[in-house]
């Protein structure tokens, strides 16, 4: 069969070379990768950021993206959240025997598109093929290197009392878009994953302010979980207002139906920034100029009270603690 990946495609022999040269390189070509040496060589100076992440999403194609786009954006965003300008990525794929070559091409196409948008080059890579049933279609791991400009110091430990908490847009889009496609839950809705590279948004924010203290993308565990991480790391309280958090109608409705709390649903193209109160409005105005920050808003502030905890004023007025996600998100029974 011409259209499927065979074990031999990962053997290191002729078929492996064919796969790399005919199928993969045409999408990802760049001078460093084209050499096909054992390692890629690049120049860099200054403070570097380095990160890695694996992607095992199911389904691999979903409204608004696929595993390839996710693998590029996820790692680009991890670099950007420390204020680094992403430069290079490596990418390895573990592919299940029998996986369709045309689907692989679709994934490579979206990797190419996402890398172009983020202006990063993929300069190292690897492909392995495993027996049927030993992997679920395709797993991708990306690592990334980025450079941090002088004067930038962004870390989860830097939140200070009085800082404002900014959110770049609506929450829950990715998690609900994925869930709407899952086996057994399939429901029709007009919702796409927010999967996007945020490095340009971040660099635009850094242009107008040097007082961005923390940044993080609320992926798995959602907004609630990363706010808790930041509160614990910086040993401060975080106070947010439920009314201020933008949520799309489709996400609200799906969460109601499934008994989920959007605060815990995953995002792939959003960021939370904790910034000095004097610069907060300026940064929000700047964020709104970028399509990925169009709905940016201040959702709360950093407090001295309740260190390590996130407190939320609910829609009805009373306040409560917002805890980290524990266990898995599961729809309710009755």
């Amino acid at each position: 069969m011409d259209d499927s990946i065979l074990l031999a495609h990962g053997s290191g022999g002729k078929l492996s070379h064919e796969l790399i040269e005919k199928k993969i390189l045409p999408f990802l070509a760049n001078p460093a990768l084209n050499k096909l040496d054992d390692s890629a060589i690049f120049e860099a100076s200054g403070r570097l950021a380095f990160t890695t992440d694996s992607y095992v999403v199911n389904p691999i194609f979903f409204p608004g993206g696929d595993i390839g786009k996710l693998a590029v954006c996820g790692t680009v965003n991890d670099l950007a959240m420390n204020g680094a300008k992403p430069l290079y990525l490596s990418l390895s794929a573990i592919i299940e025997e029998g996986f369709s070559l045309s689907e692989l091409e679709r994934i490579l196409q979206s990797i190419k598109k996402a890398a172009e948008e983020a202006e990063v080059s993929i300069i190292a890579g690897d492909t392995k093929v495993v027996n049927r049933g030993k992997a679920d279609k395709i797993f991708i791991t990306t690592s990334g290197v980025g450079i941090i400009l002088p004067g930038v110091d962004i870390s989860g430990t830097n939140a200070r009392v009085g800082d404002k908490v900014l959110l770049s847009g609506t929450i829950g889009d990715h998690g609900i878009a994925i869930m709407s496609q899952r086996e057994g839950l399939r429901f029709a809705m007009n919702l796409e994953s927010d999967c996007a590279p945020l490095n340009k948004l971040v660099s635009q924010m850094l242009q107008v302010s040097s007082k961005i203290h923390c940044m993080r993308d609320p992926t798995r565990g959602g907004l609630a979980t990363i706010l808790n991480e930041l509160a614990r790391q910086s040993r401060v309280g975080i106070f947010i207002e439920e009314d201020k958090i933008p949520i799309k109608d489709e996400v609200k409705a799906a969460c109601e139906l499934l008994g989920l709390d959007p605060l815990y649903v995953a995002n792939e193209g959003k960021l939370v920034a904790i910034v000095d109160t004097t610069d907060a409005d300026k940064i929000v105005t700047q964020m709104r100029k970028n399509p990925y920050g169009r709905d940016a808003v201040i959702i709360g502030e950093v407090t001295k009270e309740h260190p390590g905890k996130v407190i939320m004023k609910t829609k009805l007025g009373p306040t409560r603690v917002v805890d980290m996600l524990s266990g898995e998100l599961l729809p309710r029974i009755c």
Partner: protein
Amino acid sequence: MPVKFIDEYRNSELAKKLSYRIAMRSTKPIRLMEFCGGHTHTILRYGIRQLVPKTVEMRSGPGCPVCVTATADLDKAIALAHLPDVIIATFGDMIRVPGSYSSLQQAKAGGADVRIVYSTIDAIEIARANPDKSIIFIGIGFETTAPTIAASILRTMQEGIGNFYVLSLAKLCPPVMKALLDSGEVKIDGIICPGHVSVIIGSRPYEFIPRDYRVACVISGFEPLDILLCIDKLVAQIEKGEPKVEIAYSRGVKPEGNVKARQLMDEVFEIGEANWRGIGVVPESGLKIRKEYEQFDADKVFSVSLKPPKEPKGCRCGDMIRGAATPLECKLFRVTCTPERPVGPCMVSSEGVCSAYYQYETIGGDLQDF
């Protein structure tokens, strides 16, 4: 449901007005029980206890299907999972509940085929895709889920699917309310009656409660304003001394309920006793598969030998289910019992009271001085 509709039920101005009205009405200390775990979660998630006066005390009831499943029944499900060529299909929360010696999750890690489903339809699909295996659906739930379980049995019969079975652990709400009131352990002045259950059974099955026990009953939806409206009506009834059954969820519940769904239930199930965690065996509170459908009854088709059940030491889930204690009175709560390492089901289930207290701890202490 149109979303604008949802937002209207979370309006803070209306909430303030209702909260004020309840405070104005309420003169004497009363105790209300919210039957449903879903209600408990809404109450804590939105901080509703901060919106009712100190005179109104709220207790959680047994309305959490995972929580009320008796350890012995859970042990049976785990034993079934270990049978050869069996696939267990279950709602998600069940797999994490510790049984006497193990859990479905541990059985799964040990090689048993245990799959999480979102509905009985998924379980039928698994049966269809695995004709050489026996698929056993763990049929927990109240009157809300029972009709869908009945429908799944009728459908597999029609379609000639011969490898689908149900372990029926379905339970009925009004009989257990009667058992709680008869025991007199916890004095209750009013009940926030279940919303989704009442969509099926209507309001009439609760009529014995105000008549025989002088306890007010109001059926509530699951949005915060539904619950405030329900509390307002309960307080009004109790203050006047005129308990009755009212519906504060008229967009979902009709007095006669859903007749078709009940016909489905009656076709497949007959009423029998059921074993409730923390309460024990309650007559006429469970649904057993009728003889005509016994080829689908996992209890009849499979036999497993079980060691006597044992409850986790120090766990007070039974007290939580009867409304006899709050999680803050349990020595294990937050100490050794957490959502990551639950000791009892009330910490596992998304409808469990301990999980609600854990997740939605309030600031300002309305749980502490409770």
